[in-house]
């Protein structure tokens, strides 16, 4: 009896080990994997119910509806997304990627979908402005692997101004360190900086904007093996033509960036996407985020 019990354990261990390996996803030609670091509102974040929300993800979902394919969204660290796309583990990278020459060497980009500038975040009581924030010896925070970090490297440190660049896992951590007076300023994209200012309830402010005029793009593997870029580019044009684009921009980048509100709006309205009606979705999302009356599906 004892022996058989022990063997039963061994067999179940093996079954588990093999079973885990056996869960290979079936290759479905029409499902594409979208990878995103879902921790950068308002472009992408996880809401209070654990849903993946944000501008990038909605654009991906709506293009998929318009172009007749399906997507699954995979949450992955920002640094890992380009390697994963190169390795074929993700088909599309959608995580507020700035189109740069360096990245263009290893992946292909869609048409630009967003123009962003870098803003310099400081504590409101620090008295620093966009010049004094970069005084030699000051500590500047940014997220690893971002264009904000690259800007400080190229335009401050390499120009001989000895600031100390502190790199973080995510921007919210850099902002927290700024609030805690561990660093003097944070350089990050404008929409995300606005969210940070609002969330800090007046502790942080934007000292100034650096006109980098960066363009964001969705990225795919070099050579675009699944012919995704024409569909994405065409999908974005269609969204603009149908007015979906403007409504989404209004919902996510409107004056009052309210991360809590979207949880409610999303729960009420995502049914429109399930019904393949992106126009109705975007229109009602904009209304809901603006606090106006909206229609549930």
């Amino acid at each position: 009896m004892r022996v058989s019990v022990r063997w039963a354990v061994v067999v179940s261990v093996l079954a588990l080990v093999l079973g885990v390996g056996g869960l290979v996803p079936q290759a479905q030609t029409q499902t594409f994997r979208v990878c995103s670091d879902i921790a950068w509102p308002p472009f992408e974040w996880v809401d209070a119910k654990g849903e993946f929300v944000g501008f990038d993800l909605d654009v991906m979902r709506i293009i998929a509806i318009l172009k007749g394919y399906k997507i699954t969204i995979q949450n992955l660290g920002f640094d890992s997304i380009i390697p994963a796309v190169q390795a074929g583990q993700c088909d599309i990278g959608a995580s507020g990627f700035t189109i740069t020459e360096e990245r263009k060497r290893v992946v292909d980009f869609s048409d630009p979908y967003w123009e962003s500038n870098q803003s310099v975040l400081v504590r409101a009581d620090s008295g620093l402005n966009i010049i004094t924030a970069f005084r030699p010896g000051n500590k500047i925070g940014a997220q690893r692997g971002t264009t904000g970090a690259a800007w400080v490297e190229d335009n401050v440190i390499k120009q001989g101004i000895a600031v100390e660049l502190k790199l973080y896992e995510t921007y919210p951590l850099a902002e927290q360190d700024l609030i805690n007076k561990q660093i003097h300023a944070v350089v990050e994209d404008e929409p995300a900086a606005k969210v940070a200012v609002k969330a800090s309830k007046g502790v942080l402010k934007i000292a100034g904007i650096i006109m980098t005029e960066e363009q964001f793009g969705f990225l795919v593997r070099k050579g675009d093996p699944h012919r995704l870029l024409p569909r994405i580019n065409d999908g974005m044009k269609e969204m603009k033509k149908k007015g979906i684009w403007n409504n989404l921009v209004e919902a996510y980048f409107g004056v009052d960036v309210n991360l809590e509100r979207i949880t409610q709006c999303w729960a009420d309205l995502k049914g429109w996407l399930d019904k393949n009606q992106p126009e109705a979705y975007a229109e009602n999302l904009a209304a809901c985020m603006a606090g106006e009356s909206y229609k549930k599906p």
Partner: protein
Amino acid sequence: MLEKLRLVWESLPLLLQGAIVTLELTVSLLLVGLVLGVLVALGQVYGPRPLAMLMSAYERFFRAMPILVLLIVVNFGLAFVANTYQWDWLRLPTFAVAVLVFGLHSSAYQSQIFRGAIQAIKPGQLLAARALGMTRLQAIRYITLPQALRLAIPGWSNEYSGVLKDTSFAFAIGVTELARQGWQIATRTREMFLIFITVALIYLVLTYLGTWLLELVERRVSVPGLAGQRREEHGRVI
């Protein structure tokens, strides 16, 4: 204050979801590591010289690798090979890759726990078993292993609490476990300190529960009279 408590309360479902992933990963990797670790230890102690050397090389290699480096190399390496040669069967889900990598890594550590335990069994017992007509394999299977596995439990429980926390590296390849869930909530609510204190408490509970369970197993399977098994016996002697 009340508002903060409410935030913790509202975050719990997502955090517990992450805790379940952490536990699933921990249990699976420990089982993979257990099977491989015992085999490696047996090879090191009883195997012929070349096998013993091979097992030692395996153990040293995986103990030398930082888990994060191993995760990234294996995950992106497998996907790259799968893509280059169109081998779709090699496209493992990320959770499986995490179990595999953590399991290999842990097996190297576990092998040393088991090697120590096996070597604590006096060789005289094996001689006696052979004298009774048992084969080498039977002697290992019925004399050494039953005792050694019991002796290994305290060290193994240490391995449990170690790997439980290592699993937070799994997000590098996209497994959303407890620590990452905490990140995501902190990103949205900007309550870093509060959320991570909660995460820390959950890790504490998981560690405590796991080691308590293993202690229970240890007491349950203990053989009366087998040296070094019971705290009470040690206390009585001195």
